[in-house]
Structure formats: structure tokens, C-alpha cells
């Protein structure tokens, strides 16, 4: 009976191709890095119903407002800049809405993005804005709320979830009122 074993020279071919493995791992890492970057860039906007990220606003008046301590209240977060030409269209209406709702427990917060303090204060004075406003330090709020520009307004309901997201300026006071009423009802 003849022994039918594979010769040694054939066995050597089963040895690991290290060059191929290293190349494969490297290509995988590069692709993983690119995928992560793309996913990060295309996270999209925050959606209604999602939990609103908490933040601390250091106001121009020197106060510190932590949104996590405002749970149970409706919060209107308006992100703006003094150089933003669209922001001026809703500035007066937002202040009017604040005056209407301040006694009903609705909190208004103005977040000033990529601005200089001098110009921001001039803007607030020009439109007679009295609700708390402060700079978005290091652009954290802009990043956490995944903004694409200014103005954008987020209304957070009493449970801390986003009740409405407005990209661009509100067209009228009625539109603001409608959005706040919806948040108060939900």
C-alpha cells in the first residue's frame, strides 16, 4: 500500500503572506477612517422628538444658565450673530414673544455664534432684546445642535426633547407663538 501524503514543498505554500496581511490591515484602517469622517459629516440635523443636548450659557451679563436645570420648562434657543443679515428679520418678534411668554415659564436663550462681543451688544441694544444672551464659547452649542448656519431656533419641551427646529428666520410672530404653544401642549 502506497503512502499518499502531500510532499513538503506543497506544505510550504500554506505559510502566511505577511505582506498581504499588512496591506489589508492598512487599507481597512484607511477606509474605516474615511467612513467615520463621512458619517460624522453627514450626521444630519437634530430631529424633532430627539433629546435636546444640554449646555451652559455664560451670558453677557455674567450669569451662567444650565439648561439641564431648566427641565420642566419650555426653552426657546435662538442661535444668531450680529453680522447675520437674516437674523434681523426675527429679532424684534423674538423679543415680543419673550414678553408674551415670560410669565408662563417659557425660557428664552440667545446664543451668539462666531461674533465679537462689541458687535453683539450693539445688536442686542439695537433691537431692544432683553432675554438672556451669551456667546457660544468654542462653538460647542453650534456643534452639539449640528447647526448648518444662523439663524436657527430650537424649542425644547418640558421633557427636554426637541419640539421644533426652525432653520432660518421666523416669518412672523404668529409662527413663533404657534411653535411655543405646540411645545407647551406636548
Amino acid at each position, binding site marked *: 500500500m*502506497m503512502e*499518499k501524503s502531500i*510532499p513538503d*514543498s506543497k506544505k510550504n505554500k500554506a505559510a502566511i503572506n505577511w*505582506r498581504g496581511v499588512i*496591506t489589508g490591515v*492598512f487599507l481597512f484602517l*484607511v477606509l474605516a*477612517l474615511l467612513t467615520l469622517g463621512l458619517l460624522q459629516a453627514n450626521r444630519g440635523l437634530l430631529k424633532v422628538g430627539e433629546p435636546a443636548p444640554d449646555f451652559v450659557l455664560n451670558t453677557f451679563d455674567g450669569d451662567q444658565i444650565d439648561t439641564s436645570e431648566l427641565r420642566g420648562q419650555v426653552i426657546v434657543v435662538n442661535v444668531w*450673530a*450680529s*453680522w447675520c443679515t437674516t437674523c434681523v428679520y426675527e429679532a424684534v418678534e423674538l423679543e415680543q414673544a419673550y414678553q408674551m411668554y415670560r410669565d408662563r415659564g417659557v425660557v428664552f436663550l440667545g446664543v451668539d*455664534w*462666531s*461674533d*465679537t462681543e*462689541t*458687535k453683539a451688544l450693539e445688536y442686542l441694544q439695537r433691537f431692544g432684546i432683553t432675554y438672556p444672551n451669551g*456667546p457660544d*464659547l*468654542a*462653538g*460647542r452649542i453650534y456643534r452639539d445642535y449640528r447647526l448648518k448656519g444662523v439663524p436657527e431656533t430650537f424649542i425644547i419641551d418640558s421633557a427636554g426633547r426637541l419640539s421644533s427646529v426652525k432653520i432660518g428666520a421666523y416669518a412672523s410672530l404668529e409662527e413663533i407663538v404657534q411653535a411655543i404653544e405646540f411645545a407647551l401642549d406636548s
Partner: protein
Amino acid sequence: MRKKINTAACCFIVVIMSFAVVRASAQEGQPTDDDVNAIAKQLYCPVCENTPLDVCGTQACIDWRVEIRQKLTEGWSEEEIIQYFVDRHGMQVLVQPPAEGFYLFIYIVPPLILFMGILILMCAVRGWRKHVPVESPGLSPDEQDFYMTRIEDELRRRQDDA
């Protein structure tokens, strides 16, 4: 007459020079556009992507440049002004982030990818060259015997089955 003209000319020159001195002393301490731009070009525009502050014409950048000028006038140093903008607007405003922490990746990853890419390409080219005209070494006599025996066994088995 000539002496009078010379005297008048000297007086004229002295007056002109004194104006220049007054003007120079008035500007002393005031930052020039170059001073402002030296800092501005180290920062990115917050609105336009990848546009340095010194060449951007948006209102946001104009305001930022005014702020830089203001800080320079107040005696702030270049480092202090840049740190002020980083604290206020985040590390992303820097044209050249510091080579530390997470930002170290920016300096390491691209050259590494380039290096590995060149290495892979070199290996691939070497592999292609090696494989083109090479003749097959064929089987050793031992291997030939082994396979021939197996073929003959197989043929014999089939004949027996038939």
C-alpha cells in the same frame, strides 16, 4: 538774494520734516494693517470654510479684524489674541492647530498614508516584474513519481470497475 532763497528752502524742509515727525509720533502705538493681518492670517474665517481671516471679506471677518486691532491697541500680545479667539470660538479657528492631543493625527496620518501608499505601489510593481517572464520550475523527480503513481493507480481502479 541767493542766501534768502537758501534760508527759505531750509525752513520749508524743516517744516515738512516736523510734520512727518508729528505724524509718525501720532501713529506710534497704533497697529498697522500688517500687524493686524499677521495675526489674521493665522485664523480661519468662521463662516467660509478654509478661508484665512486676512483675505476674507465677510462682515464676520471684518468684525474679527477690528477686534484684533482693538486688542493690539490695548497692548495685547499676538499669543494672547490668538488664545482669546481659540477660547471663544474653538480650536477650529486656527489655521495651524498645535501638534498635540487629537490634532497630532493631522500631522501623522497624511504622511503615513502617503508613505504606505508608495510602499504598496513599490511592492506591487516589484511583484508584476517578477511574474512576467519567469518559467515554471516544474516538479521535482520525487513529485513526478508521486503523481504518476497516483494517476496509474486511478486508471487501474477505473479499468477494474469497468
